[in-house]
């Protein structure tokens, strides 16, 4: 399975995603520079975390105008797998591949810590190696991670089971105390209605090796592999 990691000026988790695909998954992977518009031949694209264009205006707002973005949209429209992590999720919101918007953390502070994620929908190409209700330990690291959507959008997300991950406590309960950033209904990750585009604030690439403290992130990458091998109808 051939992965492409899209690099915007200011991306800084590009290398981490690349290493996990190459060293842990042992699959082919290439960087895609933001000025390239060719994403042919890839089976999945990763939009990594970081601070594209410094996030000086609004997270992802300038990355939206990079030449590569139109290609990413076409790739997604064609059913290709797109995983946006952290800043990648923020960019997916800005380019309209996912609904909703991101607000600043309720604390108004950057927060980097491990959180618990409850798997809400394991029938996606990103979660087929998980069970529903399973609790994953995955770190977050962001300043603007409070997911927000209007009531109509939220109802549609719920109706289509597009909420994939929720922040939860150790026991898997989705409670306010387990919400690290003020996200609406503890939403940590969503897919598009077709199910081939996932945006998530937590960083699975940071917990895909035993030495780093958790292997839970690997389940997401392994799910993508499994989906590519036996394409499920989304």
């Amino acid at each position, binding site marked *: 399975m051939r992965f492409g990691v899209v690099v915007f*000026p200011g991306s800084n*988790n590009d290398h981490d995603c690349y290493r996990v695909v190459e060293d842990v998954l042992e699959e082919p992977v290439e960087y895609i520079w933001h000025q390239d518009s060719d994403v042919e031949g890839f089976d999945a694209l990763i939009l990594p975390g970081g601070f594209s264009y410094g996030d000086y205006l609004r997270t992802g707002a300038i990355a939206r105008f990079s030449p590569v973005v139109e290609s990413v949209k076409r790739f997604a429209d064609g059913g290709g797998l797109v995983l946006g992590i952290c800043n990648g999720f923020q960019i997916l919101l800005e380019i309209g591949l996912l609904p909703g918007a991101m607000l600043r953390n309720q604390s108004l*502070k*950057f927060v*980097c810590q491990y959180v618990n994620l409850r798997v809400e929908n394991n029938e996606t190409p990103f979660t087929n190696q998980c069970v529903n209700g399973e609790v994953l330990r995955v*770190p977050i690291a962001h300043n603007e991670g409070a997911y927000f959507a209007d009531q109509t959008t939220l109802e549609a997300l719920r109706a289509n089971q597009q909420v994939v991950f929720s922040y939860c406590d150790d026991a898997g309960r989705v409670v306010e105390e387990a919400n690290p950033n003020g996200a609406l209904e503890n939403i940590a990750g969503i897919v598009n209605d077709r199910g081939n585009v996932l945006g998530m604030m937590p960083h699975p*690439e*940071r917990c895909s090796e035993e030495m*780093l*403290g958790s292997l839970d992130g690997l389940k997401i990458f392994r799910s993508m592999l499994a989906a590519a091998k036996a394409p499920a109808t989304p």
Partner: protein
Amino acid sequence: MVEPAITPDTIADHGLTEEEYDRIVELLGRPPNHLELGIFSVMWSEHCSYKSSKSHLGKFPTEGPHIVQGPGENAGIVDIGDGLALVFKIESHNHPSFIEPFQGAATGVGGILRDIFTMGARPLASLNSLRFGPLQIPKNRYLMEGVVAGIAAYGNCIGVPTVGGEIHFSEVYNGNPLVNVFNVGLTRHDRIFRGRADGAGNAVMYVGSKTGRDGIHGATMASEDFDETSEERRPTVQVGDPFTEKLLLEACLEVMEENLIVGIQDMGAAGLTCSTSEMASRGNTGITVDLARVPRREEGMSPYEIMLSESQERMLLVAKPGQEERVREVFARWNLDCVAVGEVTDDGLLRVTDDGRPLAAIPAVALTEHAPVYERPLAPPDDLAERQSLDLDRVYIPEDCSAVLLELLASPSIANKEWVWRQYDHMVRINTVVLPGSDAAVIRLPGTAKGVAMSLDGNGRWCWLDPREGGKRAVAEAARNVVCAGARPLAITNCLNFGNPERPSTMWAFAEVVEGMAEACEALGTPVTGGNVSFYNETLGTAVYPTPVVGVVGLLEDVSKHLTQWFKDEGDAVVLLGPASEELGGSEYLAVVHGLVRGRPSIDLGLERSVHELILKAAGEGLLKSAHDVSDGGLAVALAEAGFQPSGHPLGCSISLRVETRPDAALFGEGPSRVVVSCIPDNVQRLQGLAEEGRVPFTLLGTVGGEDLTVSGPDGKPLISVAASEAKRSWEESLPGLFERPQERDFDR
């Protein structure tokens, strides 16, 4: 433009003395013009010239088998085998952080990162050492929030993890917070670059951000005391742009990987002036720079402003002949300015021109090697004997040591710093093996089995009481922290934060600290590869404690064998390696509970080295499950902290303690060279054997396990008995509580 006249007032405004001015005239063979005066003033400022400290810094040992680059470059370099090298350095940004905490601290991070990647290394991880006045004072909370947010904003955006450090609080830092930042990077021996301008005729290229009016005379500002008007200095603080620095980092590493350049130096303090004169001076060459070609952010900037601007995210490099175009292409891809602004010459002069019109011509070495060096007068403070006398008969022994333990755990200098480090991205680049909170941070080195452990440490209180012993103990503790991660300390960098050097007592403390540190570096086999001196940390005549901050890097050949400070399993044995000292002088306990900063700390460096060797040996044999340095708050705090693993229920332990003098001294004394380790009971005998071989005192203290932390005295009487969860709560809730529910007090200055 009318050239301003040089008057005694102009000279004084530039922070130069009359003698210094006469020396300039002598070196030039004529009076300087206004631009030249500005150039001399920044290069001869304390910050750039080290004129008060130079004669002392020579006492540091700087050579050793691992040392690739000692002091004098942008950063130090140590060899770690397999063709790899670590590049590391510490920098202070104390003055700007007091004036503008967010940008002051942010640009400190930007500066230290440039020092690392200018040598050819990709930054691996940052640490920081911070000191503030008590948080009950609103101004100190404002400073700390701003500094932490500034460090976070810069480090997080550029994508270099901030993996730990230290924070201390004391009244003496009220008007003078200390903000020291450290970074370590990784490079290969065949990709080390230096700040040298070699090869006459080679192009001198300016890369990075455009030049603006920010930060003019920042170095001079950092070389003065503060008073009520200091906040008017805000325009001398630069503004950071971590996004541009990220681009600059990637572009620089690309031209280095392609081997396109001869030398490179960042434009930090004193900007274009410092980079041109230092590069020429190191290369025994000259540099001509034409200001008309310098990319500018605003119109109408004078040559003086361009030469003295401290705009951030700029570098000066010398290209290899014929490679200028390729260098330009790389920087263009990253959307950065890259302009040939001049060339290397063979006449030894720093020549400044404006579209060919000569503006200044100064021998480069006049600005660097020929800067004044002062042997400032030294005298111990009048009250030294009083500080050092501690009459313990007049210090009551608390009845409830459990309550004292809880109080110490909540003392901000000891309490959990998660409120701070959760604001730092400490995991980016997926190399952080030990997350913040343990004695040392551990980073794995990608593509190898190796790891690097690092720690920053200092203790101003000890140095105020006895600068020589305090200096020794600062080095010993930083090295011990790295040893507690199972790593062998290789070398140190240091940041020496002091008051006004023109005060003989400050200079005496400085000299003593340096000699103490030098002795410890010799004894522990950790040479000094460079560092930073920050004087004038003084507001309205009140100086900070003499505060050396020591950064140590250590190597783990096999990173999977690293240790952390936390107990692992119930039933494991708890052992104290090192002397069973009961030294109360200079302790956090004495300061917090009794309001006393008294005593005379000391250290036996031979024993310290033996403790290091013992732990490394035991760790190498796989005998140890944890190792935690006994420091602030003494043995009782160390035992409590060892039970506070990052996740899950805290672990208690039952300990029995011999008490020779008094229970508070045995529990809370901070005698050095002590480490609490845990191991399976079957390994106790082997560990004891190794300790005897290594002549290190060995004390079996007790067992890990249970809900409570209990310490009983010689007669079996309980000295401490608290629930581990209660202890953890006290330790965890202190810092957030101070920010969220402050009990305000007036800023007394």
